[in-house]
């Protein structure tokens, strides 16, 4: 009896907790990522209250932050910076890197290339557990004396190196560094695994030129991560030395709190080079999976092949490569050699070309399609809009001469939120609605999905479109309030409007949360291939089985985009269907 219970419990633990099955790990990443997203969103709503109604008292601020950080319901300036920093860190790293790549790389790579699991199930499991531990430490850092890291998500030293400079640079910063180190380990474990799996475990017939674009995007993303995260690790390590062991890699000639520090010869600009060598590829680590996911969903729901498959692959590769030689566009006004600024303007603007190709190809895919507006499709179309609307302001910011006056203003905040924040969030939702049947065997509720989509897109543009104008008026970001600068007084109303839209958007996310939970338990059961899609994941049974396919692995005969092919009975031809005599494989010519 005892032995039996023991056995049963162990299988529960290995199945649901320390699982090595990629499908379970993907769900673990998803749920953790969503919890982090909720936290990150809550933080932004809290500081938006301060920005919208500067200096006014809100019970809810006091409720969440207590008397220490929101005495009388008014946000403390240090806590404002802390919240902004945590919000940025959580959104970029934990939601849109860990959450997005973690979920969809794990779910889709084995299923769409026809593999039984990841190359190393154990490493994959570790990758999740490192991610969870990193998340917990990051959240825990909010509660320490002195508050969490507050130097911005870019943690530029000396601010991040000196506890005298800001309270958050004490224990809070230490925990930030520990958490990020573990996070980097997680993403390396995951990334190496994804690369090895895609390269080695494709099923028979799955040539690289037959891979769905999701896999191409996830593969290049993993390569970017593996090449760039170690550099962030090195940067963080040197920062740890400066903070704790008296070195001065980043510190020089400092006088603070009435005392000169014994540091010389370091360079704060060095940190910025190291940070952005990761930081820029990082934004593509966020956006490439988003573009992959939307390619897949747009093709399926337009009932049309993705337009220019080869060009899409080439542009993913080009973006991936270029993303490594543009980092200093974040540093035009640091006082670095202006000749460098010229070179980085050139390389940065080059990225606009493959990005434009992608945008045009999406449009042509939709053109003369037969569009089916599932909630996933709505979000994918929303992504095309945000990607273009936010991308074009990047052309302005890439110009070193123009960045002089726009750097670190709200124009930048508007730009990156739309092009990367909103696009990637839209893709994450699109992916969840689309692959929910694969994860949970149920369909998400469509009506609630519509409500969620419209609230989200209205919120997104309502929050970020007006911020361009603040930026053009010269309003700096990371300002707790504008009282010292009456020149921004005419924007009080606009700041209020922005905050109201932020609250609308936030409410929309509760509709999603509800739908997500409701559908897991009460949702309609899905059929095996609910969206009539070509890719391999829909040839697996609805009930998860270990090893994905109960019998032999499927064999692939064609690319993933034979939708509405002339001569076929149905408007889709799964990749497992052999080519008819005389038929050509469209991806390969």
């Amino acid at each position, binding site marked *: 009896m005892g032995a039996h219970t023991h056995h049963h419990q162990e299988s529960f633990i290995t199945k649901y907790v320390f699982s090595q099955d990629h499908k379970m790990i993907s769900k673990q990443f998803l749920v953790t990522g969503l919890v982090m997203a909720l936290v990150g969103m809550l933080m932004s709503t809290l500081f938006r209250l301060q920005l919208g109604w500067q200096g006014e008292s809100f019970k809810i601020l006091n409720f969440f932050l207590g008397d220490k950080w929101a005495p009388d319901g008014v946000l403390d300036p240090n806590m404002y910076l802390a919240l902004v920093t945590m919000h940025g860190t959580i959104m970029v790293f934990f939601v849109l890197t860990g959450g997005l790549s973690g979920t969809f790389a794990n779910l889709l790579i084995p299923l769409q290339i026809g593999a039984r699991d990841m190359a190393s199930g154990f490493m994959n499991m570790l990758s999740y557990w490192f991610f969870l531990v990193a998340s917990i430490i990051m959240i825990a850092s909010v509660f320490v004396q002195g508050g969490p890291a507050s130097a911005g998500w870019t943690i530029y030293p000396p601010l991040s190196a000196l506890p005298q400079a*800001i309270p958050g640079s004490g224990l809070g910063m230490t925990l930030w560094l520990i958490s990020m180190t573990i996070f980097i380990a997680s993403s390396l474990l995951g990334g190496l695994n994804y690369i090895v799996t895609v390269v080695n475990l494709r099923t028979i017939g799955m040539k690289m030129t037959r891979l769905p674009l999701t896999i191409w995007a996830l593969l290049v993303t993993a390569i970017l991560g593996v090449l760039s995260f170690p550099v962030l690790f090195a940067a963080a390590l040197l920062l740890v030395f400066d903070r704790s062991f008296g070195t001065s890699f980043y510190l020089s000639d400092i006088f603070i709190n009435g005392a000169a520090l014994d540091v010389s010869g370091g360079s704060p600009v060095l940190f910025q080079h190291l940070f952005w060598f990761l930081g820029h590829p990082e934004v593509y680590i966020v956006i490439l999976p988003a573009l992959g996911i939307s390619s897949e969903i747009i093709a399926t729901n337009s009932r049309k092949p993705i337009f*220019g*498959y080869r060009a899409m692959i080439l542009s993913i590769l080009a973006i991936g490569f270029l993303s490594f030689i543009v980092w200093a566009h974040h540093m035009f*006004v640091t*006082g670095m050699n202006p000749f460098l600024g*010229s070179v980085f303007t050139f390389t940065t603007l080059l990225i606009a070309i493959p990005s434009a190709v992608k945008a045009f190809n999406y449009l*042509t895919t939709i*053109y003369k399609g037969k569009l089916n507006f599932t909630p996933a499709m709505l979000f994918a179309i929303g992504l095309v809009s945000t990607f273009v609307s936010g991308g074009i302001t990047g052309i302005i910011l890439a*110009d070193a001469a123009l960045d002089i006056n726009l750097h670190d203003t709200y124009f930048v905040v508007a730009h990156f939120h739309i092009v990367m924040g909103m696009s990637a969030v839209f893709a994450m939702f699109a992916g969840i609605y689309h692959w929910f049947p694969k994860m949970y065997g149920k369909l998400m509720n469509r009506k609630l999905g519509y409500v969620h989509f419209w609230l989200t897109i209205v919120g997104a543009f309502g929050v970020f479109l007006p911020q361009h104008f603040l930026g053009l008026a010269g309003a700096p970001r990371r300002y707790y309030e504008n009282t010292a600068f009456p020149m921004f007084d005419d924007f009080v109303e606009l700041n209020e409007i922005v905050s109201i839209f932020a609250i609308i958007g936030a409410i929309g996310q509760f509709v999603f949360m509800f739908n997500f939970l409701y559908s897991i338990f009460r949702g309609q059961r899905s059929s095996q291939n609910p969206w009539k899609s070509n890719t391999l994941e829909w040839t697996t049974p609805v009930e998860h089985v270990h090893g994905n396919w109960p019998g032999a692995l499927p064999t692939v005969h064609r690319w993933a985009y034979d939708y509405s092919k002339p001569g076929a009975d149905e408007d889709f031809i799964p990749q497992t269907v052999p080519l008819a005599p005389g038929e050509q494989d469209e991806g390969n010519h």
Partner: protein
Amino acid sequence: MITFLTYSVIILAIVSMVYLARIADLTRDLKGGNEADVPQSENKQSALGFIIFMVGLFASYIWLIQEYMPMTLPQAASEHGAKIDGLMNINLIVVNIVFVVINILLFVFAFKYESSKREKADFYPHNNTLELIWTIIPSIFLAVIITWGLYVWSGIHQIKVDSTLWIAGLGLLITGAAIIGLLKNLVAEIRVTVGGSLMLFGAFFCSYFFIAKNSINTEVSEEPLVIELYARQFDWTARYAGADQKLGAAHVRYIDGANTVGINTEDKAGLDDQIVRNEFHIPKGKPVRFVIRSQDVIHSAYMPHFRAQVNAVPGMPTSMSFTPTITTQEMRADEKTRKKYEKINKIREKRGEEPIEFNYVLLCNKICGATHYNMKMDIVVDTPEDYQKWLSEQKTLTEVLGPSEEAQQEENIAQL
């Protein structure tokens, strides 16, 4: 009461979501069929939704432009700033065209090709000509923007280039061409990508040589006025060079009492330096060179009206230069500024605050700690005469510190 209302609203919201979900599920049960298929009616609604959204988006955008474009920065008050504005305007025009056109295409396609209106989708996997066209058109536009942008940028910084640059560029061009033309046993894709990138960079360096050369200002301009801007948590100080036109040597280790910016008092050049707070003046029409220092963390000296910004980095003095072209008085009379400040003062009146007048400002634009948002200095652009008058009223370091002990002793001896 409020609490009660809040909870009721939350409960109501949840209940209505449950019902919405239930009803949707039930109707599907009744209808049967593939439960994942989107019914035509819903597709039509979403298609219409996109059009309504698009109209709303553009309407709000137009409203924003009308209401808030007049509230953005007035015309640039510096020589190079005018060039930046010209570049910005052309960029804004193009960017807005792309924004409008692409969003219209997207949402109209979404409306037009919605499922219920179509028998079957076209099978249209690719078209090389089309793809080539929309690679080349953005490329041409970008080439123009890059050239123009770099011309302005290198003009601002007076970037000096020598002939090694175009020689290197030529080298890259030839190497790239050789890779494409000669290494026949490499795969075509690799040959073209590697060779092509080298040629691209070669072309860039060659053309950059001419861009930078042409942007250099060859007229012998007068010596710039040098002003130091000194940043610390959380204020700015400006230092003028004094009668000798030379800033005295300084380092944080000399910071002591009233000598807040750490001037080395042994350096005679520093004794006549003038230190000002809260507000500093610059003369119209004279080139000014700012040297920027920080004593603690990174700050950023941002003067939006002059289109000027550079970080203040501890241990690494940075610099920027510009020539102011509009005095504070003139800018106050500027049409755009007047309108903006009328609106501001109306808002301030409603809040019971004093009316204010336009002032140029220096802001801190790099997160630097708790009251980063308070770190400012007003800037006054004077006519050269007013400027001289103002300057002569500012105290020198010696006046601020009082005579040093040695000087005191010397004086005592002399009196004996």
